[in-house]
């Protein structure tokens, strides 16, 4: 329960910051202001400014948008493609299911970062390629969970009765499989979101993610490097933001898993 | 007295249990699930879970077991005290060969038993190099029995050893227990099946809701039950013909 609450609060704050940024930010995050460079924690600039005089808090808020955006699209792609794949593999004859899983493993051999770099090389690196690459790299996790859950559901009495009654595959998938594995999928979504956030941060850090001047937490970290000795704040602020988001989604996933698990076990 | 239990309490699941077992005696402990019989056995072995403390007195050959250090208790277990548990399928380490597991009680005390001998004695010749998953439930239970008897314990506790097995296999295991237990060793046999008690034990203790409600020789208790619960048990079982 505690995991759920803490996770929810952390994720919630990121979401709130992102949503708020659409309406209002303390300053314009991309506006260069040479007179106010490298300020510390002040009354007007709560987190200070960077070497271009841009307000850190505003960058943080708009960066939250990117982070969430990438997470949602990446997890969305993975869920929308991976889930049907997994369900199909679980409902098919054994050899087909095994084959799909082998292909799955192959995709797994291309980690998110590597795919993003490859995509970046071919299509040019920006937020879109990063999202799609991370999404594709996450498909195997969803497919695997979906298949494993499907196999369990398929052996329950409900489904055996439905099959005996001549219900079509699609019908069974929609009415029995999907509702019963949704819990598993939600947990996976939360965990994958955390991974996506880390991947996006790493990519931006390497220069393969969001292009300037759009604020991005990963790039904020990369930019902070040269002045690290004198202004560690520049690294700590985005760094803690990333950690908060990742921790939040992980805890959320753990909490959801704890809540849904006994019910899952009982239903399936 | 080999085993002397006085006023044993475990949480509120075992309340004021007292009984004695002398050398060479075969005593049955009978009751339904939830009566506290397994907890009593675990209390004697010192294997109760952390959250369930025991109070009262449990002494083996005059030595008090409750409150004894883990170090001393572990010296007694597998040597003077041994136990066979209910579920054979999970009782053995799946990653270790059966022969190695069976000689372990001896090995940790510097005694060198031969795995083949121990396994032969329980009717499992040639299985020393097998892994547990290659054996059936009944066979695994024999291995567990062999392990328990390896050091000729003063007290062997069996907690429903045949409940998880087929009826045909049950009879084999029971007869094995009777024949392979050394004469001087005491036996505490826990079960919910009166027929089993009748075939193995000379004395019987009847347990209900954490207390012993009747005790006496098997013949007495089964032919002239004093407590209402005992009577109910007898009625529910099919010992009619035996009487």
């Amino acid at each position, binding site marked *: 329960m505690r995991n759920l609450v803490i996770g929810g609060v952390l994720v919630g704050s990121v979401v709130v910051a992102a949503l708020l940024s659409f309406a209002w930010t303390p300053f314009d995050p991309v506006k260069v202001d040479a007179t106010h460079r490298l300020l510390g924690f002040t009354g007007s600039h709560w987190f200070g400014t960077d070497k271009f005089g841009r307000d850190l808090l505003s960058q943080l808020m708009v960066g939250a948008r990117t982070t969430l955006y990438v997470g949602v699209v990446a997890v969305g792609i993975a869920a929308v493609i991976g889930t049907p794949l997994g369900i199909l593999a679980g409902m098919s004859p054994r050899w087909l299911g095994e084959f799909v899983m082998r292909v799955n493993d192959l995709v797994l*051999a291309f980690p998110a970062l590597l795919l993003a770099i*490859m995509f970046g090389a071919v299509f040019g690196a920006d937020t879109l390629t990063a999202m799609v690459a991370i999404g594709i790299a996450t498909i195997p996790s969803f497919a695997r969970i979906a298949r494993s859950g499907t196999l369990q559901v398929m052996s329950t009495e409900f489904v055996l009765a439905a099959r005996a009654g001549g219900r079509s595959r699609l019908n069974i998938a929609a009415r029995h499989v999907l509702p019963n594995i949704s819990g598993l999928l939600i947990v996976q979504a939360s965990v994958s979101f955390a991974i996506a956030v880390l991947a996006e941060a790493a990519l931006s850090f390497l220069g393969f993610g969001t292009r300037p001047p759009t604020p991005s937490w990963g790039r904020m970290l990369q930019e902070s490097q040269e002045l690290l000795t004198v202004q560690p704040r520049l690294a700590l602020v985005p760094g803690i933001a990333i950690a908060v988001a990742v921790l939040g989604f*992980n805890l959320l996933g753990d909490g959801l898993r704890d809540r849904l698990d006994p019910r899952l076990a009982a239903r399936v | 007295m080999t085993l002397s239990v006085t006023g044993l309490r475990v949480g509120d699941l075992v309340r004021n249990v007292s009984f004695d077992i002398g050398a060479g005696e075969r005593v049955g402990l009978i009751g339904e699930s939830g009566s506290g019989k397994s907890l009593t056995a675990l209390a004697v072995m010192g294997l109760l879970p952390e959250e369930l403390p025991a109070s009262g007195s449990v002494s083996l050959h005059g030595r008090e077991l409750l409150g004894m250090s883990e170090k001393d208790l572990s010296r007694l277990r597998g040597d003077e005290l041994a136990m066979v548990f209910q579920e054979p399928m999970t009782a053995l380490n799946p990653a270790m060969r059966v022969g190695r597991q069976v000689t372990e009680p001896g090995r940790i005390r510097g005694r060198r038993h031969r795995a083949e001998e121990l396994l032969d004695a329980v009717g499992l010749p040639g299985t020393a190099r097998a892994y547990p998953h290659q054996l059936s439930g009944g066979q695994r239970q024999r291995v567990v029995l062999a392990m328990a008897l390896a050091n000729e314990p003063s007290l062997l506790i069996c907690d429903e050893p045949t409940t998880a097995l087929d009826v045909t296999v049950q009879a084999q295991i029971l007869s094995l227990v009777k024949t392979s237990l050394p004469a001087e060793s005491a036996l505490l046999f826990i079960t919910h099946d009166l027929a089993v008690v009748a075939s193995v034990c000379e004395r019987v203790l009847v347990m209900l809701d954490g207390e012993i409600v009747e005790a006496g020789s098997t013949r007495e208790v089964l032919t002239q039950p004093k407590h209402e619960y005992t009577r109910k048990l007898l009625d529910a079982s099919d010992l009619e013909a035996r009487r």
Partner: protein
Amino acid sequence: MTARVLRRVAIFVVSVLVASIVVFLFMAVLPGDPAQVALGVNATPELLAKTRTEFGIDRPLVTQYFDWIGGVLHGDFGRSYVTREAIGSQLLDRLGVTLWLVGAGMLVALVIAVPAGTFAAVKHRKASGASVSGLSQIGVAIPAFLAGIILVQIFAVQLRWLPSGGWTPPDQDFGEFVRGLILPALSLGLVQGAVLTRYVRSAVLDTLGQDYLRTARSKGLRPGQALVRHGLRNASVPVVTVLGLQLATLLIGAVVVERVFVLPGLGSMLLDAVGSRDLLTVQGIVLVLVVGVLLVNFVVDVLYTVLDPRLRGS
């Protein structure tokens, strides 16, 4: 058991082949002309055509693929379109650096995770166990490069105990080699250690609840002895799975850490090649990385059958 292993070998070989085709096709899809990129905008059409022939890119794709893969199997990764140097030898050197980094990182991760995870499992009801568990949760949330930046800040800049970057080969100066490896290995290892701790904890917790541990104790083994002699091997099975997955993550994490510490590894070679649109090099490196991941998975699979006799199929 041999049948199972052979099957795995077959799957591995097929996977590698398919992966190589995917990588090749991917690079072939790239819009643009490597000859143009190499020669610049002012190149004459004749020069471009000549360069294309030199690169071999005017041939049909299938020929190019087989030529490439045939060379790779002999260790010849071709010549870079940009630097005109042989890719293979540089790849090997860089791979060595990355492997040292990944190996050291894995070592750090294991050294942290096995004791910490076991402790957290054994004491899971007490505050001490719970706090270790909590710490590992936080550790998971920190990106490796952030850990790197912080470590550099503390140990290299402020305390000046360790260098902030650079690489010394082990045969050149072993002391410097080790000193230069510590911080990068820690950056990778601390974070992976946190992830691994959670898995170790879960595996040990599972094992602690197993009946055969109770049997072991009833034979006279003390709780610690029982856990080590009986639990270890069984608990290691899920941990080995994760180790395999972790190796893949470490490999990729190394890419980022190499940036932070300016290490001449495969990661920085990859990033440089992408930057200069050196496609053949990118192709080669990606292949090596992907095959590396597949290889690790294969080894893990085989290790399973060694660790868990139930999987040997008798």
